[in-house]
């Protein structure tokens, strides 16, 4: 008897039919666009002159690093992605790309993004980018996501780091301003994702992911959303009176923060039926606009200061 069962060996290897669009989907392009935008603001706010070619290189490396994180996240989570309506269409559950292919793709991009940023810009930024990818993949995806309801609170740090990496790329150091940007995104993450989790809790429950609404229930989640929103609005406003950001930012932060808080109160108060679902969806959608609005204001302030320094 032969030790090897030849009948068990597949003679014709699998030939991939995955096209470029499938690999682009692995990069989570929508998350990537937010990363690029927040990193751009970090770059723009950094003091001193930073050559456009170096700025573009930094942004590209940060974007590719974020894409690598997305691909590695999909590699690890393909089993639960297949169970959730929101993610069942991703390339691995659909059978377009295999897990080893996604792993190789993600690791290759992670390696090249970190090395390119380190070699062409500076190693401090390269190390920070490597840490960001590590934190998102190992700490958030592998260690926290299936283990604790605080997964996105701690994991949110990974999403908050891109403007810090960008600042480090431009200056080679860190300062209070990028840490303020970090804190804004960090405290924005829980209300944003818990709002999503509230109207997708069936999905998360089916996949066995211990999101807060699944573990603690919708009412406790609503309270947490409200509390985190209060902290977020205060932290996002504080840089103006502390003298780090200008008045236009302060007023914008106040207006957007007021609207965000009103929507969070609405989510807290409306707990049943269609109105509750609508309130949650509104908060989720507005939270994206809120973060975009704050960062866009900071970017406009920098542009205005550069164009008309005497007025500003």
């Amino acid at each position: 008897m032969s030790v090897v069962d030849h009948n068990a060996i597949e003679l014709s290897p699998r030939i991939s039919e995955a096209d470029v669009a499938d690999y682009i989907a692995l990069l989570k392009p929508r998350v990537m666009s937010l990363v690029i935008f927040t990193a751009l603001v970090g770059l723009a706010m950094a003091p001193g002159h930073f050559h456009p070619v170096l700025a573009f290189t930094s942004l590209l490396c940060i974007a590719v690093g974020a894409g690598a994180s997305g691909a590695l996240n999909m590699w690890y989570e393909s089993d639960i992605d297949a169970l959730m309506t929101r993610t069942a269409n991703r390339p691995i559950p659909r059978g377009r790309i295999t897990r080893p292919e996604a792993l190789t793709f993600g690791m290759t991009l992670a390696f090249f993004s970190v090395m390119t940023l380190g070699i062409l810009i500076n190693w401090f930024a390269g190390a920070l980018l490597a840490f960001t990818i590590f934190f998102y993949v190992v700490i958030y995806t592998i260690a926290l996501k299936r283990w604790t309801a605080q997964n996105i609170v701690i994991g949110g740090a990974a999403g908050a780091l891109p403007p810090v990496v960008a600042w480090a790329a431009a200056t080679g150091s860190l300062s209070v301003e990028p840490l303020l940007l970090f804190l804004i995104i960090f405290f924005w993450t829980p209300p944003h994702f818990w709002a999503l989790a509230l109207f997708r809790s069936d999905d998360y429950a089916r996949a066995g992911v211990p999101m807060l609404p699944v573990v603690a229930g919708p009412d406790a989640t609503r309270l947490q959303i409200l509390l985190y929103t209060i902290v977020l609005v205060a932290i996002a406003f504080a840089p103006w009176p502390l003298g780090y950001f200008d008045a236009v930012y302060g007023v914008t932060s106040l207006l957007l923060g007021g609207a965000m808080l009103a929507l969070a109160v609405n989510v807290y108060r409306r707990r049943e039926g269609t109105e509750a679902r609508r309130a949650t969806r509104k908060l989720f959608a507005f939270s994206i606009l809120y973060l975009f609005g704050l960062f866009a204001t900071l970017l406009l302030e920098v542009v205005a200061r550069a164009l008309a320094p005497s007025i500003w």
Partner: protein
Amino acid sequence: MEDKREPDGIVLTEAQKKSRRERSIAIALALGVLVVLFFAVTIVKGPAVLVRPM
């Protein structure tokens, strides 16, 4: 052991050929971008490109 494969080996379908070609072009473009990037940064930084602060 009897070899069940055709003498010509594995024959790709049109869809497989198309997707492989697409992927090859994407890899070539990515490598091209990397080369241009290293060239451009070298021009911008000049001799300082060899100085890599920690």
